[in-house]
């Protein structure tokens, strides 16, 4: 299993944002995306996950193995923690096991309505979804926002020991240090020139 990205170009709002992005990850490898605000990390991750079409280039990974996670983590505020996770497990044809709850220190909160969680607790719930759906290729957009240091550690442990160690792949955009040994890719050099070809409005110019 691998994730191969060749010469990818992606656009947002009809404007080219990044061009010529290429990298290749084998099973068990992670990549950390870096770059200042607005460089195009979110755009790249959405393109990789197939949520928006690429302007050019190829993304290759086993079908039905990708999962995308961002700030909006699909947590229903009127469902309890277990109900939320059990739903996502069921959608992916799996069972919810307690290990996922334990990995993100949610065991004590399992019957709380998600709406009554604090910002960081809610985020942990959103991340626990990743442990539950069993997808191998993760695209994570600032996963550790509003987590405290201990929780960032939990997340890094999960990624290292439970995901990558079992042959998973992860691409992570973040501004902070995750405590994960993984190569970093700075996106600044791939920034598309504003007049780069390929925007949806190109035909008009």
């Amino acid at each position, binding site marked *: 299993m691998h994730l191969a990205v060749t010469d990818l170009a992606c656009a947002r709002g009809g404007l080219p944002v990044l061009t010529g992005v290429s990298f290749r990850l084998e099973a068990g490898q992670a990549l950390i995306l870096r770059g200042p605000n607005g460089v195009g990390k979110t755009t790249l991750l959405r393109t990789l996950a197939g*949520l*928006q079409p690429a302007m050019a280039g190829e993304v290759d990974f086993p079908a039905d193995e990708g999962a995308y996670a961002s700030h*909006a983590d699909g947590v*229903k505020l*009127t469902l309890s923690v277990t109900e939320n996770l059990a739903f*996502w497990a*069921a*959608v*992916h044809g799996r069972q919810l096991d307690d290990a996922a709850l334990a990995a993100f220190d949610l065991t004590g909160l399992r019957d709380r309505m998600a709406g009554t969680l604090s910002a960081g607790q809610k985020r942990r719930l959103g991340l626990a979804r990743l442990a539950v759906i069993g997808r191998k290729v993760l695209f994570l957009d600032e996963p550790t926002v509003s987590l405290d240091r201990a929780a960032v550690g939990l997340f890094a442990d999960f990624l290292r020991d439970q995901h990558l160690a079992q042959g998973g792949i992860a691409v992570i955009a973040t501004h902070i240090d995750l405590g994960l040994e993984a190569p970093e890719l700075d996106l600044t050099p791939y920034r598309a020139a504003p007049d780069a070809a390929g925007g949806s409005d190109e035909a008009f110019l």
Partner: protein
Amino acid sequence: MIALLIRDLRLAIRAGGGFGLGLAFFLIVIVLVPFGVGPERAVLTRIAPGMLWVAALLAALLSLDRIFALDHEDGSLALLATAPLPLEGVVLVKAAAHWLTTGLPLTLAAPVLGILLNLSPEATPWLLASLGLGTPALSMIGAFGAALTVGLRRGGLLLSLLVLPLYVPTLIFGAEAVRRGAEGLTALPSLALVGGVTAGCFALLPFAAAAALRVNLR
């Protein structure tokens, strides 16, 4: 897909009741009509079939924008799109959940509310049948409209505007069936047409709605 249906039903019940409220709106429109039109019984009997259908339609309409909007806001929709469910299936389940929480209770309550409007008793079975056959089409068409407007901030009213003309055939056939029933004529042809519209909607609209969702998720 079952999991999705169960979750949607649970959410509808938790969050203060999709059930109760659609129904309550139906009741209230029916109650408002005599206040507006005046209490003459002959007039009310005459307009009862039509008003019941219009009220059912408006009640269904009011809850449409939530079919996808909430799931879009909190990101669930993007996650569902990358989950191993066909998006057409998601649309179908969403329409089914909407019908179960709105159309079905409406249909069951309509005979009772018919009494408020002096609906003639012969019309009641036809009312049940035409609403039972027609409201699934309302939910499916509504899901299509909701898929078109899901990304928009003020989608609610725009959604009504898009969906209402699409409701016209269902409304005409449905109300016609009840009116004919009330006059003692045979209402079967109208009823068959309602069924035809519903079948057509379920055959075609999931694909259109899924396409619209994909565009909106980009």
